[in-house]
C-alpha cells in the first residue's frame, strides 16, 4: 500500500475543518479522491509552521504548495479527475486562474487587511494557535504579506489609493462569484455528479467566506445571495466532512469555552451562536469586551 501521508495545516472553526483556503482545498481533494491523509492541525505546541502551510509529508518527501500536493496525490493514484475529458481539464485550469486572480485578493483583504476583521477575529484566532513568542510576530507578518500581494498585483495606476484598490477587488470578487454561480447552475458539482479538483478549489476559497463570522461581511452577504453556491458548500461539508452541531469535538470545545471565557484569545463565539436569545451575533463583540 502507499506510504502513510501526513498533512500539516491550519485548523478549523465555525463548522469548517480549516480556515485557510489552501489547507481546505487540499483536505477537500483528499476526501474526494479517497486519499488516506492524517491531518495534523497546527496547535499551540513547539512544532511551529515553517514556511508554507499546508505541507504534506510522506516518508521522506515534503511537499508544500496545493498544486504540487495535488499532483503528488494524483501520482499516488488518488485522482479525482479521472473521468474528466481533456476540455474539462482545460476548463479546470482556467477557472482556478479566475479564482486566484479575481477572488483571492478580496479573500485576503477580508481576512488580513480589513482592520476590524483582522483585529477582532483573524489575529486572535491565529495567535491562539501559534506558540508565544511567535504569536506576536507571525500574524502581523501574514497580514503584511497579504497587503503586499494585493497592492503589487492590483494596485497600479489608475488606482492610487488603498480605498480605490479595495473597491476594485471587491467588484472583481463579486463578479467572480456571479460567474461561478452561472457556471454551476443547478448541478451538484461543476462537472456532473462527482467532485473534482475544481470543486476542491472552489470549496477551499468559498467556504471561509461563507462561514467565518466577521464584523465586515460584504463578500459574505453577496455570496449568500447566490443560493446554489451556498448549497454547494453545505453539501460538501455534510457529505465529506460530516461536521454538524452534534460533532463531539465541537461539544468538547463548547465546554472548554466556559472555562476560557476570560481569555481574550478564546472569545465565546460558539456559545452565542447556540443561544436561543435573539441578537446572537451582535452581542458577541460585547461579550468579547467584557472581562
Amino acid at each position, binding site marked *: 500500500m502507499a506510504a502513510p501521508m501526513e498533512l500539516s495545516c491550519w485548523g478549523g472553526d465555525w463548522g469548517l475543518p480549516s480556515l485557510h483556503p489552501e489547507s481546505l482545498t487540499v483536505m477537500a481533494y483528499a476526501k474526494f479522491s479517497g486519499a488516506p491523509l492524517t491531518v495534523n492541525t497546527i496547535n499551540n505546541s513547539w512544532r511551529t509552521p515553517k514556511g508554507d502551510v499546508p505541507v504534506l509529508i510522506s516518508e521522506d518527501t515534503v511537499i508544500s*504548495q496545493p498544486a504540487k500536493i495535488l499532483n503528488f496525490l494524483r501520482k499516488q493514484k488518488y485522482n479525482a479527475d479521472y473521468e474528466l475529458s*481533456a*476540455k474539462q*481539464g*482545460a*476548463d479546470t*485550469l*482556467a*477557472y482556478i*486562474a*479566475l479564482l*486566484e*486572480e*479575481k477572488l483571492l485578493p478580496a479573500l485576503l483583504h477580508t481576512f488580513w487587511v480589513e482592520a476590524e476583521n483582522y483585529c477582532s477575529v483573524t489575529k486572535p484566532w491565529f495567535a491562539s494557535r501559534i506558540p508565544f513568542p511567535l504569536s506576536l510576530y507571525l500574524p502581523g507578518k501574514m497580514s503584511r*504579506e497579504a497587503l*503586499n*500581494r494585493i497592492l*503589487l*498585483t492590483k494596485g*497600479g*495606476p*489608475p488606482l492610487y489609493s488603498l480605498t480605490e484598490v479595495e473597491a476594485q477587488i471587491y467588484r472583481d470578487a463579486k463578479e467572480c462569484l456571479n*460567474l*461561478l454561480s*452561472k*457556471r454551476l*447552475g443547478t448541478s451538484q458539482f461543476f462537472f456532473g455528479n462527482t467532485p473534482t479538483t475544481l470543486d476542491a478549489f472552489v470549496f477551499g476559497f468559498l467556504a471561509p467566506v461563507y462561514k467565518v463570522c466577521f464584523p465586515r461581511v460584504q463578500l459574505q452577504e453577496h455570496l449568500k445571495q447566490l443560493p446554489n453556491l451556498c448549497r454547494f458548500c453545505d453539501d460538501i461539508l455534510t457529505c465529506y466532512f460530516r461536521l454538524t452541531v452534534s460533532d463531539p469535538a465541537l461539544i468538547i470545545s463548547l465546554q472548554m469555552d466556559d472555562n476560557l471565557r476570560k481569555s481574550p484569545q478564546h472569545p465565546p463565539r460558539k456559545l452565542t451562536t447556540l443561544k436561543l436569545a435573539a441578537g446572537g451575533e451582535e452581542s458577541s463583540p460585547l461579550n468579547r469586551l467584557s472581562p
Partner: protein
Amino acid sequence: MPKSQAIQAFLQMCNLPVRVVCRANAEYMSPSGKVPFIHVGNQVVSELGPIVQFVKAKGHSLSDGLDEVQKAEMKAYMELVNNMLLTAELYLQWCDDVTVEEITHPRYGSPYPWPLNRILAYQKQWEIRRKMKAIGWAGKSLEQVLEDVDQCCQALSQRLGTQPYFFNKQPTELDALVFGHLFTILTTQLTTDELSEKVKNYGNLTAFCRRIEQQYFEGHDKDNSGTAAARSAKRSLLR
C-alpha cells in the same frame, strides 16, 4: 508587445480602423502608466479590459452572441492567459539573468541616454521581481516556468480543438488576447528558443495564429502609416 498585438487584433476583429504609432514616452502618456493605449478623439483609454468596455459602449462587441456560461468560460480563460502566459513572459524578460542582460536591459533603455537607461531598466526590474516574489514565482526555476507555459498551451489547445476560433465561428476578446501573446512568443527573438518551441508543439495553436494574422493583418499592412522603425520591426509568421 503581446498586449499591443492583442489590442490591434481585437480592434481589427471589430472592423475598426487603427493606426499604430510608436512613441518613447508612451508609458507617461497613458492614463494608467501602462502601454498600449488608444487615443480616440478626446479620449485616451489604456489596457485591454477598459478598451473592450469602451468599444462596447460605442456599440461594438464581439461576445454578444455568447450565453452566460460561455461568457463565464471566456473570462476564466482570459484570466488563465493573464495568470500563466503573461507572468511567464515577464519572468523570462526580467528574472532570467541571461535574457535580462542581453535583451531586456538594452531594449528597455534604448530611448534614453546613459545613465538614465540603466537606472530605469534596473528600477523596472526591481519592481517586477518584487511582484514575482509576492505571487510566489520568485522561487521558480526556468524549467518550472516553461512547464507552466506548456500546461497553459495544452489547456488552450484542448479548448480550441479543431474549431477556427475559441467560440466556434466568431472571434471574441479571448481570441484577440491569445493571438497577442502567442504571436509575440513565436516571433520574438530571445536567447533560447525554448519558449516558442513549447508553443510550436501545438499545431492547432500555430495554425490559429497564422489564420488570424492572414485574415486581420495582411491587408492592413499596406495602409499602415506607422514610422519606419515600426515597419522594420514588423514581423510575420509567414516568412
